[in-house]
């Protein structure tokens, strides 16, 4: 039996468009994955053989190994800072009404709107002025700023959809504001916090533009990939990229499994 279509006249078109859009989203990743196993340094597409040697090359090169460690360190640190600051900020802007709240909400979203080139330049000038030349610390601070809007978005959406009465009930039962925050608010928004942490980690891990302004000696993985590709054209980069795609995918699936995107995003953005 045919399913009843409540909007007649559109037929197959919407479904075809959806499939086309999905293909367009997925195709580049598939191309990269296929190129990564091409044995020739010319990186043919479609691949003219099968080999894991570029994977081996990627993991044995010290530059990439160090860059991976550096990226992990920065991304973990930035995600941790964004998570703590983002949770507190979200709690204030969602649960409190104060003069200038709209401005604070806008400022918290600003790093997401400003072109990264501008941000990177700003950080460079700022750190130079402050005579801060420690590359690790500078990059970490900059990444914390870049990832904060993502954390605030996800956590405040979660906070907005949780009943305020939960906190009020805890208060009436005798819990002070601080204990209420620890015992009730934090456990209830835990799904949002997990998701925010994963997003912040990925955003930091992926960042190129801002980082490029601040790199002195050691670079993050995207920076190393870029400097490698300027001199070499073999599929090593494709191999690294394939690994990154798999790691990101695992992270996203984990979030979906643990939390569910529906629960994080429902309630939508921030009202001002």
């Amino acid at each position, binding site marked *: 039996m045919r399913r009843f279509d409540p909007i007649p006249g559109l037929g197959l078109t919407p479904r075809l468009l959806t499939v086309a859009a999905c293909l367009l989203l997925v195709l580049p990743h598939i191309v990269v994955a296929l190129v990564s196993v091409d044995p020739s340094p010319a990186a043919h597409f479609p691949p003219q053989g099968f080999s894991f040697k570029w994977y081996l090359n990627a993991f044995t090169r010290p530059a990439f190994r160090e860059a991976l460690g550096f990226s992990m360190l920065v991304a973990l640190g930035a995600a941790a800072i964004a998570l703590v600051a983002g949770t507190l900020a979200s709690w204030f802007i969602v649960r409190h009404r104060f003069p200038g709240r709209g401005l604070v909400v806008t400022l918290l979203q600003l790093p997401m709107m400003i072109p990264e080139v501008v941000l990177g330049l700003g950080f460079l000038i700022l750190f130079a002025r402050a005579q801060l030349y420690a590359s690790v610390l500078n990059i970490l601070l900059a990444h914390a700023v870049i990832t904060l809007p993502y954390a605030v978005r996800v956590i405040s959406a979660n906070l907005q959809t949780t009943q305020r009465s939960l906190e009020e009930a805890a*208060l009436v039962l005798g819990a002070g504001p601080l204990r209420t925050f620890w015992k009730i608010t934090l456990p209830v928004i835990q799904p949002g916090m997990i998701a925010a942490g994963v997003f912040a980690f990925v955003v930091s891990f992926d960042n190129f533009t801002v980082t490029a302004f601040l790199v002195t000696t050691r670079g993050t993985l995207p920076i190393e990939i870029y400097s490698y590709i300027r001199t070499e054209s073999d599929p090593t980069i494709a191999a690294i990229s394939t690994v990154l795609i798999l790691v990101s995918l695992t992270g996203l699936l984990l979030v979906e499994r643990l939390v569910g995107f529906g629960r994080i995003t429902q309630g939508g953005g921030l009202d001002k």
Partner: protein
Amino acid sequence: MTAGAIRLEQLSISHGTKRVVHAIDLAIQPGEFVCLLGPSGCGKTTTLRAIAGLNRVESGRVEIDGILANELPAHRRNIAMVFQDLALFPHMTVAQNIAFGLALRKVPAAETRQRIGEMLALLHLEGLQERLPRQLSGGQQQRVAIARSLVVRPAVLLLDEPFAALDRKLREEMRREIRALQRRLGLTVVFVTHDQEEALTLADRVVVMNQGVIEQAGPPDAIYETPASRFVLDFVGQTNFLAVTRAGEGLRLAGEPVTAAGACLAGDALQIALRPERLRIAIAAPTLANRLPGQIDEIAYEGALVTYQVALQDGQRLLLREANVGDGERRRLGDRVTLEWRAEDTLLIGEA
């Protein structure tokens, strides 16, 4: 002195620039069951939340057991509250929810276990202590919310429309239970509802609120029988409002003389007010003070009750309700009937 006295004096509360409670006075005795009744936006929930310490008092006093509590934070008031959405902690089991207030009062573990057990028994929740709130039915969640509030042995229990989401049968059952619990534990209860039937059934005293002021406070029968204002008359129960004219000393309805010996209330137009159940259809010769011909133009059969809509000769319509006692003949649509009612049941609404 027994604990649980609440006194509101000239209490005013605003949300932003909008004033929602206007200088109300209310004294609640220990052990009293009071219902705050009114339409949405009348200030009843705001008043309740001010007693709990969840709303800022703009002016006036909130006294709990004779002590000024205006600035006392919610977590120091030793008042319990059941929220409209219940606000069960979703990440805690039933037992953990109930234990929450006890842990804050540093109750020893053995006593905590014993008191949780008492609450589970009292509210028929045995065997459910390890469940999470989402694994419970609506009625069970309701009971957990009440258990969590009562376990700390408060002198005052506040309830904000707690049964609004339940179906009728369950709602009636929960009403009986909360009333029995209140009597047994000697609690002061302040119960907010917009359901007039709920307020009349439950309360020792009903406080009818409208637009931030108290219209009338009194026992349920006084609220129903001798309403203090047209609003109370209209909001509590069903009422026929019929336009009448003055004819010399007397009144005329649909051309016929009527006598009104009930209360006189202020209103915008000259009307009489009649409760549908105080009207009857005259079978033999009419015996009551007021009588009027009419024609049945709608019948609502409700089982135990039958409600007739009767058109008067001037086109005004009124409702008449009879108990379905089964001895009389069933009326039919279009039947011409004579209505009769007592002068004492006729309230007069005057322009003055």
